[in-house]
């Protein structure tokens, strides 16, 4: 087989073998605004000031290009779970979120068939935000605050059919940065959009695989080495007795530039059940 034949076949397969789960995600994303518009038509009240606990199930699609693992771009899909505690007031928001995601990603290339990475990502985030805009209407609120993130990312590389075995890559980041949140309330429904841009933190970004370092080695990072954008879009609908359902869309883009440029992108849609904690305030 000539190299050029191999080239054509590989590139063709990259185009044709994009993760099929991604198609489902895209379809849902396109229809999501329409669903939101339809549901936002109702008008009653969501004025529940109790803290809330939300359990979330996610479907995610991710792609990454990490030269220290492979010169190829890897992509795939997976699932995630999250547990979130939130206390939203008119003037401030406290939000703590624990999230775990598992994905199988591959290079999407016939030439690298059988090469597979399993990605495990755990994130703990704490957000504190205060209202910055006087309520122009009881429906809209704008918050600005600080978000703290702790993320552990493990990438288990399986070498492919010729070479049984695995290697472990990954990184750990503790970051902080501003968060911007806008929420629109309409009766029993609330749409909240949040943008977080961590710009400073501590990170362990190994040169190669995890065993090369042996232990956690944190160093200070700023936007020159770590560029992250997180976006969350959540649509709350209230059910009976304060319980609710939350539909969500999450997006993460992260680029690390310590030894090389490593790029990670992830998006996901989620469904969650939200429960009030404690008794309703008067």
């Amino acid at each position: 087989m000539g190299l050029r034949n191999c080239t054509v076949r590989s590139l063709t397969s990259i185009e044709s073998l994009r993760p099929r789960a991604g198609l489902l995600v895209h379809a849902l994303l396109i229809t999501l605004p329409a669903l939101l518009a339809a549901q936002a038509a109702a008008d009653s009240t969501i004025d529940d000031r109790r803290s809330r606990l939300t359990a979330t199930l996610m479907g995610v699609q991710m792609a990454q290009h990490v030269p220290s693992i492979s010169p190829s771009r890897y992509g795939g899909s997976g699932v995630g779970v999250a547990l979130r505690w939130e206390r939203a007031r008119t003037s401030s928001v406290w939000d703590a979120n624990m999230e775990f995601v598992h994905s199988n990603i591959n290079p999407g290339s016939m030439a690298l068939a059988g090469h597979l990475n399993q990605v495990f990502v755990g994130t703990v985030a704490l957000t504190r935000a205060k209202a910055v805009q006087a309520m122009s209407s009881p429906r809209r609120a704008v918050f600005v605050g600080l978000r703290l993130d702790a993320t552990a990312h493990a990438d288990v590389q399986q070498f492919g059919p010729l070479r049984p075995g695995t290697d472990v890559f990954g990184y750990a980041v503790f970051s902080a940065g501003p968060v911007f949140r806008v929420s629109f309330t309409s009766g029993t429904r609330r749409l909240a959009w949040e943008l977080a841009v961590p710009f400073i933190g501590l990170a362990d970004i190994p040169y190669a695989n995890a065993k090369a370092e042996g232990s956690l080695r944190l160093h200070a990072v700023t936007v020159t080495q770590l560029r992250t954008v997180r976006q969350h879009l959540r649509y709350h609908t209230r059910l009976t007795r304060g319980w609710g359902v939350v539909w969500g869309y999450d997006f993460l883009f992260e680029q690390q530039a310590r030894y090389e440029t490593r790029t990670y992108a992830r998006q996901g849609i989620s469904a969650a059940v939200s429960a009030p904690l404690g008794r309703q305030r008067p």
Partner: protein
Amino acid sequence: MTSRGRALATAAACTLMVGCTEMLVPRSRGLEPVELFDIVWQDFDRYYASFEIKGVDWNDVRQRFRPQAESARTDAQIAATIGRMLVELRDPHVELAIPPHTFYVSLAAQRTYFDPNTAFGTRYVTAGRMTPTRNIWYGMIGTDVGYVRVVSFVGTGWSGEIDTAIESLQAARAFILDVRDNGGGNSGTAEKIASRFATRRYRFAYVRFRNGPRHGDFADPIARDIVPIGPQRFGGPVIALTNRRVMSAAETFVMAMRARPNTELLGDTTIGGLGNPLVRELPNGWTFRVPQSIEYGPGMEVFEGVGIGPAVVVPHSAADSAAGRDPQLEAAIARIRLRIP
């Protein structure tokens, strides 16, 4: 537009703007022959641990071989060029796998004349047996010396088979541990087997991993200890048999024996290929291995590229093999009997 409409429009725009993660992540690199060469050269430049130990000028190697890569037009031509470049490292852990074949530095020159069937034959070993995985051969030499040959350290989960061997050789007052022609495998398995011959914890090695773009960038040394495990541990005299085909995890085992009290290495020098390999892949499906670490003895001695020399050198010739003799095993038997209390 109402405020609700603006909100929904904003949400939709944000959603659709970031709707495709793959658009944000760089595509795979190209597959032109010279690009394959560049990826391999660059990966070794970034991750290979032994440039300085071996005195290899990697930039010079690139200058010599890149013109050949530029003129390569087929898989065979670029594979041959990459292969010739990698041979410059003289490292048995370096491999280039082009499905379905794997190419590596040939060990044909490391002729040992060791014949396992001679060593394990009735001339020396009585009541010889093998464990279920056939990785461990064992038996008695006379009435007081146990003989254990570890054929390979490949894989995990079978190291407990050594317990069976030790238990059935309970009459042994000394052991000959034979790892000749053992090409290695999993160093954890090697350490677990060595741990059955330890009665107390001891340090046998340090390992340092390459962790930076300069050829001399290494992480701090990681200590490696042998910790006694297993239902029965043997603390008596041991002779470990080595030869010029002992490499990788088998050399880890030899290092563990070298640091063990009341132990002697006998035979010939090992290969000197101890670097833990990082597996890399190319966009066209080829893979290759880059040794990314250096192992040191407990006194920070370096064996990479030079091998571990035995305390007692005993040659093994073609004539010995033709005569059905194993002079290294014979010397080991004679010396171990002197050590039996």
